[in-house]
């Protein structure tokens, strides 16, 4: 029996709307530009699904036909985008097959479009077919919801997918309701049930009201947690839940001397160097970015300030070491590390020296760049080594880290030396600069000193309710500074966004600030630490009189790095009661898979403890297994609870009998004889026997009546059958438990 044309049309329209909004959500996520193509594929998928559902009667044909129908639209829609150089029909076909299979994880635009188009077509076809023929739209919405969820979690532009995703979810719920009323109408038609006027109108109104109300409520409920655990569960990932993000630009996370917040990145961790030393907490400084212009930061001193080049043969960096001059702080510790390069030229074309803090000494000779002081360089912006570094080369380096406490920094005052003042210039010559300045004033209102102002800005940026870490930040509109867009609209970005924004706001507040490009501390590999390209990081330094340049960390903990604020008053070379992971404290040599790693101690990680942070590594597979088991149990429970017809009930009963240890039904057994045999074997107390026995007898008798009676079962018989089956289902867990208990008892007796 087919559904009425009006019902099919309504379902088709809703399916079409839901699939179009799903495509809209995917396209809003910034995966690809093939918008017209994908919309075309979606419409074709829905139309094909509906036509096939209405014209063909065999499910097998419909399944076999699906791939051909998919390529019927995908090939014409994407053939004009096919990369040049692919000749021959066989090559083209194999290319399409490959692209359909694994295009979603490809970086090639055409392959990705084909892969995405195939998925979207399959979802559309499946939903249209199930909703208009099988009245099982709820099953059909499963892949659609899955696609929505994955898109929501991994889209390069997460902020842009919210509206279409929610709209699509609403349409999907309406599709479920539409399928439900379609199925009911069909049943009523078959049973010749008269329908009083106004039913469909009331159904539609009630459904629409319900869905709208639910969406409103769901939208205002805050999330339970914003902490991302997926990284600890799914290793080797480039995005949440292991889905590799497709990025319009194939820019890999790595060291860059300039800080110019840009487009999406992908993380491909490659080891750069290993090190060991007297601390593992320090950031590795490579270059200092003091030149701020139009929202970006470049290496060197502030604009207009000359930079000097001083050769040094090593090991001491030729810098002004008098705290009174401001070049170094009065309260510092020296961190010493031995570095061994495992990649040639980890800092790019120019070989820069790598220092665990502000450059202090290096065994490799080179030239120091910075601002001239009285007895050397007041600031060291970079050390350009004389020769490029090769694999296996090693260097003994040391850096200077401030150990000033928070109180000391609060009392540092604002009597900046002249060279430091140049780091506080922030011309308000553009609307972006003015916006940043206003924002900085708002955020720092009520603070009484530079340190509190800096920590207020840092805290705002680290607030997970306000800003989100992502490697796929949305692109800023043309003409707008990326950091202004980041601060006011998108509120999502990676470390360059956070550090650039904080540096600009500090300068807008008149606090000398600069950015430092370098590496995080990496991850432990035995007694050493390994730093990878994905540990490349940017952070902020603000100048405090008498204490020098102080590190700030505005980048929040996120899916790709557990960034923590910098502890004050801590000597990184000495173990302290505060949590401080050391090389020996890391129990596993596994490198961290993410782009950036927290350089600071982790709160739950006590010194010397062998306990790792976060959920253990077996939790992921365990969660997967639990989910699979739950899925299997759920499907089985659904199968058991919803038999269609008497033969289905009898099949399920035999399944339960087999679970109970009954032998298979013999050919000579009638239903009644079989159930009687089962009743005789039942374990447990008489009460259960009685209930189960009645249910079993009823089912057997009615099955026989259904099978052998000329008129079959009447409606009351069906109800009796259903009631008996439900009674059986309710009693079965108790039976199963009794059987297990009896077995145990039997085993125990046998042991005795």
């Amino acid at each position, binding site marked *: 029996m087919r559904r009425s044309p009006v019902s099919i049309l309504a379902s088709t329209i809703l399916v079409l709307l839901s699939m179009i909004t799903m495509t809209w959500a995917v396209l809003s996520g910034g995966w690809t530009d093939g918008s017209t193509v994908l919309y075309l594929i979606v419409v074709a998928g829905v139309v094909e699904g509906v036509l096939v559902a209405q014209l063909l009667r065999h499910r097998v044909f419909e399944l076999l036909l699906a791939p051909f129908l998919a390529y019927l639209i995908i090939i014409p829609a994407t053939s004009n985008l096919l990369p040049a150089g692919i000749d021959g029909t066989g090559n083209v076909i194999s290319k399409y097959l490959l692209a359909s299979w694994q295009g979603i994880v490809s970086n090639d635009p055409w392959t990705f479009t084909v892969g995405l188009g195939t998925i979207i077509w399959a979802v559309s076809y499946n939903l249209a077919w199930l909703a208009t023929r099988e009245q099982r739209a*709820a099953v059909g919405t499963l892949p659609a919801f899955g696609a929505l*969820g994955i898109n*929501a979690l991994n889209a390069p532009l*997460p902020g842009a997918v919210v509206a279409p995703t929610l709209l699509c979810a609403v349409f999907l719920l309406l599709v479920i309701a539409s399928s439900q*009323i379609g199925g009911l109408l069909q049943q009523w038609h078959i049973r010749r049930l*008269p329908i009083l006027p106004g*039913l469909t109108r*009331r159904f539609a109104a009630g459904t629409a009201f319900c869905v709208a109300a639910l969406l409103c409520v769901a939208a205002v409920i805050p999330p339970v947690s914003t902490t991302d*655990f997926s990284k600890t569960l799914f290793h080797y990932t480039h995005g949440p839940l292991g889905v590799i993000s497709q990025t319009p630009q194939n820019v890999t996370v790595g060291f860059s001397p300039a800080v110019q917040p840009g487009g999406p990145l992908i993380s491909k961790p490659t080891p750069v160097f290993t090190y060991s030393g007297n601390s593992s907490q320090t950031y590795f400084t490579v270059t200092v970015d003091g030149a701020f212009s139009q929202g970006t930061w470049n290496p060197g001193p502030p604009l207009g300030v000359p930079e000097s080049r001083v050769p040094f043969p090593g090991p001491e960096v030729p810098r002004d070491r008098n705290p009174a001059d401001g070049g170094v702080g009065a309260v510092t510790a020296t961190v010493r590390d031995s570095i061994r390069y495992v990649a040639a030229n980890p800092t790019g074309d120019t070989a820069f020296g790598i220092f665990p803090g502000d450059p202090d000494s290096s065994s490799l000779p080179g030239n120091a760049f910075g601002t001239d002081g009285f007895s050397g360089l007041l600031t060291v912006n970079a050390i350009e080594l004389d020769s490029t570094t090769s694999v296996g080369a090693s260097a003994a380096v040391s850096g200077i880290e401030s150990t000033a406490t928070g109180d000391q920094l609060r009392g540092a005052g604002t009597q900046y030396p002249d060279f430091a003042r140049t780091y506080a210039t922030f011309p308000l010559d553009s609307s972006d600069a003015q916006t940043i300045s206003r924002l900085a004033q708002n955020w720092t209102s009520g603070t009484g000193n530079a340190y509190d102002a800096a920590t207020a800005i840092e805290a705002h940026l680290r607030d997970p309710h306000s800003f989100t870490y992502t490697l796929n930040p949305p692109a800023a509109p043309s003409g707008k500074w990326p950091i202004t867009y980041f601060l006011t609209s998108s509120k999502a970005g990676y470390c360059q966004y956070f550090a650039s924004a904080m540096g600009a706001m500090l300068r807008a507040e008149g606090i000398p600030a600069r950015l430092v490009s370098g590496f995080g501390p990496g991850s432990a590999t035995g007694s050493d630490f390994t730093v990878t390209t994905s540990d490349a990081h940017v952070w902020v330094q603000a100048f405090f009189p008498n204490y020098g340049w102080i590190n700030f960390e505005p980048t929040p903990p996120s899916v790709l790095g557990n960034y923590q604020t910098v502890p004050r008053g801590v000597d990184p070379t000495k173990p302290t009661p505060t949590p401080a992971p050391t090389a020996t404290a890391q129990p596993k040599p596994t490198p961290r898979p993410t782009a950036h790693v927290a350089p600071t101690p982790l709160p739950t990680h006590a010194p010397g403890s062998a306990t790792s942070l976060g959920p253990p590594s077996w939790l992921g597979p365990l969660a997967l297994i639990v989910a699979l088991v*739950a899925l299997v149990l759920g499907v089985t429970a659904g199968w058991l609870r919803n038999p269609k017809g008497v033969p289905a009930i009898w099949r399920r009963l035999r399944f339960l009998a087999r679970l109970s240890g009954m032998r298979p039904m013999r050919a000579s057994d009638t239903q009644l004889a079989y159930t009687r045999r089962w009743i005789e074997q039942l374990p447990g107390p008489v009460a259960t026997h009685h209930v189960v026995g009645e249910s079993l007898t009823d089912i057997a008798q009615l099955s026989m009546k259904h099978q052998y009676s000329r008129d079959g079962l009447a409606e009351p018989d069906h109800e009796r059958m259903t009631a008996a089956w439900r009674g059986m289902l309710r009693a079965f867990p108790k039976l199963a438990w009794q059987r297990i208990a009896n077995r145990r008892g039997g085993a125990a007796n046998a042991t005795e």
Partner: protein
Amino acid sequence: MTTRAPVSAVLIVLAVFAGLTGVRLAYTLAYLMVLLMVASFLWSRALAKRLRVERQSPTGTFSVGDQFEEQFVVRNRSHLPMPYCEVLDRSELRAYRPDRVCGLGAGQAVGWQARGEFERRGRHRFGPLIARVGDPFGLFPRNVRVAAASDVVVFPTIHHLDDSVASWAGGSFDATTGGQPHDRPPDASGVRLYQSGDPLNRVHWLSSARTGNLMSRTFDTRQSSDQLIVLDLEYGIHAGVAPESSLEYAISICASLVHAAVRAGKAVGLVTNDRAGTVIGAGRGEAQRLRILEFLAVAQADGYMPIAHLVEQHGRMWKGRGGITVITASRETDWVESLVDVGSRGQRHLAVVVDPTSFGAPGTAVRVPTAWRLAANWWVVRSGDALSTLSVRASGM
């Protein structure tokens, strides 16, 4: 299949996604599904609890073929709209479908009338009703059971038999049949208007002179004209499916004879060989008629005593009290001998044979030998016969 399983799967997947990643949008989607489940559950629960179905059904006694009417009102007393409500009647009345599907707003009610016809005898119950309601997503459908409203008793079809049949059944309501069936001299019991065909020797001239119209005498035997009906309800002898079954025909003939006898003021009794061995002593009047009809309304062929035993047993006791009518579908012959045995001079009993072969039973059609015809009146009924014109069939037998 409800949609609960797939929606639950979506909910679980989204909740896992949200919990693992902390992404707000994933949480919103998960919340949406959670709220959907909760709202659907509460919605369907509220509807089921606040649903009222009222039903006004007929009561009393009816006959097969009578029309009846029922009134239904469905009220949604909840504050939520009711997307749909299936009202399903579980009465066992054939061809009567008062079922409806409706949708109701909050606090609204809807009503309808349903008309039907009693097609079968028996004790029928109006109801129970099953009202099916649920949320629009099919997550939590619920059934509400409304108890049965009333019972009615439907008597079997009563045909108005012509006088010849009635007279064969042991009485002489009018001596219209040709010839004198009894050896004993009749007694004149009254007069009535002359009817075409009355013999001239029956004209009562004195009354005719007094009234100015030809008046005929009516006669009665000295024997009682009471009637005993023996209905064969032995298991397995009947054939066919109601209403075209030999059992239904037999019961209908029985009811018709009882009706005619009572209306004629005769005492009538009923003996059956059903499982309970029902015996209803002879009696007159409306109460007796209802008593027998109520039994016939629910009578089933579930006995095991052969009809011959029944005739023999009760026929002896009935001797001299009036005629015996045996209604059977049996193809055995011994009951005929029993019937002849319990007869007396001047008394011809009636044998009504409902031919089971005409209702699908195997074998050849029933034939009545000439000797039997001389011993009793015979009436062979076949499927499709018009029971009110039996005399034609009977005379042509």
